[in-house]
């Protein structure tokens, strides 16, 4: 009895240590202190050891499982980089030097830009991934981004109270704004059967136009204001904490939004796979027919899924305003919606996976800019590589297709 108890306690302690090592390591790595990787590696080794012992599994089998999981992504990634290199070579640029600069810029030199790029993408990617699990396609995440940004700017410009109150309030208000915004396509879907691809996309364009009007009325009027098409700066009390107040060597622009994004990804993963509501969402996504016969109210779940997706996408706008910009720009082609789709699809709609694919996307952008500055290869090659990486999705299908053909 006592032995069991101590074993249990020991288990919990080891779990805690692994998570703590992992969290601290991640924190340091994000802050640009790359020694943090060693902590992550130690945590991973620990975890693998424990996992093997618990499941009574051979290391070989374990590696095999991992291999099967990353076979297609790795294959597609490699292939797309290869093709990208060939395209660069044909267009007259040195692929090896370009890739060198891209990797150095994206992963080491401008790591903070990678992180900053990936924050909104994690949110929009999570939003799209969640909707996908519920069998819905939230293609207009960009519109919800604008709603979140507008709500955050509006409150941030007007209320100046303690950050401990105002920041949560803005986050909740932004989430509500995005959720309410998505009530429209949800209602149209369940009442009229209107496909959410059309409705959310139309709302995205509407939100973009409204946001430019909003900016005009909040200090960005080109006739009266010195800074045209940009709102005034929000009160400092609503700014998110910066990393350099904890790790002095971190870049001054880096803010804790990334931790919120990672936290939310874990939360969404937990919600989808460990709660009843998440289970219902996945059932409706897999087969609405089954859900109906099981007595699940499908319309209710559809409304819930779209509202959650809208709220999460709006948080992208909130973090961007509170963390990075502290004001709102008229930036109509930011592409957070489309890149969010790419990120979610690439992660195979896994919430945890979204973190990594968003980081990859961010690194490609940051590295591309560095590459353009140093070796003068145009940044737009990144767009092509992104497109090619999306072939990752095709790679899986291509594999099965080729296999089937060989049999026939």
């Amino acid at each position, binding site marked *: 009895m006592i032995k069991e108890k101590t074993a249990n306690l020991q288990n919990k302690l080891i779990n805690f240590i692994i998570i703590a090592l992992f969290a601290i390591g991640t924190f340091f790595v994000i802050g640009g202190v790359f020694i943090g990787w060693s902590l992550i590696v130690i945590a991973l080794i620990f975890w693998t050891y424990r996992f093997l012992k618990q499941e009574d599994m051979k290391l070989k089998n374990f590696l095999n499982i991992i291999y099967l999981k990353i076979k297609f992504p790795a294959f597609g990634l490699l292939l797309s980089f290869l093709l990208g290199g060939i395209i660069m070579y044909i*267009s007259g640029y040195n692929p090896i030097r370009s890739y060198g600069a891209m990797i150095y810029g994206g992963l080491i030199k401008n790591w903070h830009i990678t992180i900053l790029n990936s924050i909104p993408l994690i949110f929009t990617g999570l939003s799209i991934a969640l909707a996908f699990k519920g069998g819905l*396609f939230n*293609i207009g995440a960009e519109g919800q981004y604008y709603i979140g940004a507008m709500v955050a700017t509006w409150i941030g410009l007007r209320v100046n109270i303690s950050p401990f109150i105002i920041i949560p309030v803005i986050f909740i208000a932004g989430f509500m704004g995005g959720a309410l915004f998505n009530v*429209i396509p949800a209602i*149209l879907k369940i009442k*009229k*059967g*209107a*496909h959410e*691809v*059309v*409705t959310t*996309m*139309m*709302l995205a*364009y*509407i939100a973009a*136009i*409204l946001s*430019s*009007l909003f900016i*005009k009325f909040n200090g960005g*009027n080109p006739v009266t204001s010195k800074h045209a098409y940009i709102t005034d700066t929000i009160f400092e009390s609503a700014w998110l904490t910066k990393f350099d107040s904890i790790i002095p060597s971190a870049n001054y622009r880096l803010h804790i939004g990334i931790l919120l994004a990672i936290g939310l990804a874990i939360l969404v993963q937990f919600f989808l796979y460990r709660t009843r509501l998440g289970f219902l969402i996945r059932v409706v996504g897999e087969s609405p027919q089954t859900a109906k016969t099981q007595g699940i109210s499908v319309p209710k779940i559809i409304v819930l899924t779209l509202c959650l997706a809208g709220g999460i996408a709006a948080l992208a706008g909130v973090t961007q305003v509170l963390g990075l910009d502290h004001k709102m720009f008229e930036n109509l*082609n930011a*592409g957070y919606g*489309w890149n969010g*789709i*790419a990120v979610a*699809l690439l992660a195979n709609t896994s919430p945890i996976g979204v973190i990594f694919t968003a980081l990859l996307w961010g690194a490609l952008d940051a590295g591309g800019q560095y590459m353009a500055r140093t070796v003068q290869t*145009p940044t*737009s*090659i990144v*767009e*092509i590589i*992104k*497109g090619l990486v*999306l072939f990752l*999705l*095709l790679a899986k*299908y*291509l594999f*099965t*297709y080729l296999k089937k053909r060989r049999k026939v």
Partner: protein
Amino acid sequence: MNFIGSIINTEFFIAAVRLSVPIILAAVAATICEKAGIINIAMEGMMLIGAFFAAWGAWLTGNPWIGLMFGIFAGTAMGLFHGWATIDLHMNHVVSGAVINILGFGITRYLMVLVFGHPGNSEQIPLSLAAFRFKIPLLNKIPFIGDILFNQTPIVYLTIVLLFVIQWVLKRSAFGLHLHAAGEHPEVLATLGISVKKIRYIAVGFSGTLCGIAGAFLSIENGLSFSEGMTSGRGFIALGANTAGGWSIIGSVIASLFFGAVDALALRIQVLNIFDIYSELFLIFPYVAALIAVGGLVFKSNPPKALGEDYQSE
């Protein structure tokens, strides 16, 4: 009434027709594709690619007709790519469409830099298709309609002709029947010994062709150059037109004309600048109209039964 008169006059209707042409083409593309059972949300990307290649061809050769050929070719290629992904690779139709839209933005952006040396706007083409504007004798004497429909540019006429041909093929020919069957009951079609795959490939390829024409209209007939993201959601408005039109050619065309008219109205109000700072607000009109139309479902909704379903020939 002077105010309304200054907005709604013959010029307004001409603008409405011109603005609805790309939407009509893309909406019909969606209708044909979805009638064959393949969901198509990729019109936006296909139009962008078509627009770029049309502008490139016209700029390269100085001949807008060759530009149009380029646009058609590129659009068809994208259509067939969607077909390959959905029919042969059995990808989710919506996912494939989204990927094509993303690729459309990316490819045109990269090619802009490669061909013109900078993103944003392309060089102006030397000669646009609008230069070939001609009146149709006799018909253009009809009051009102003559001015609007029969004193137009080539692609507008091409669209009108295509609409009649498509409607005839769908309603009166054996191929039209097969197309319907491919979207409603593919198994039945297969038992008749007709290849569902082939019918679907033709439908999705042709929808790409139409999108290519629509893109060419934007870049080399309505304008003089390609600019990034110049389709500005028309592909999705077209998708809305197809839904609001109840998956029928006539319904799609009527809905598209309505959206074109709303677009023209919004632009005229903005240009006249009557409402000062709020004028920008009117730009949301077409999107709101599409939203309402899709939500209200003006026509009877009648989507093909096997829409979006993967068809395995075994």
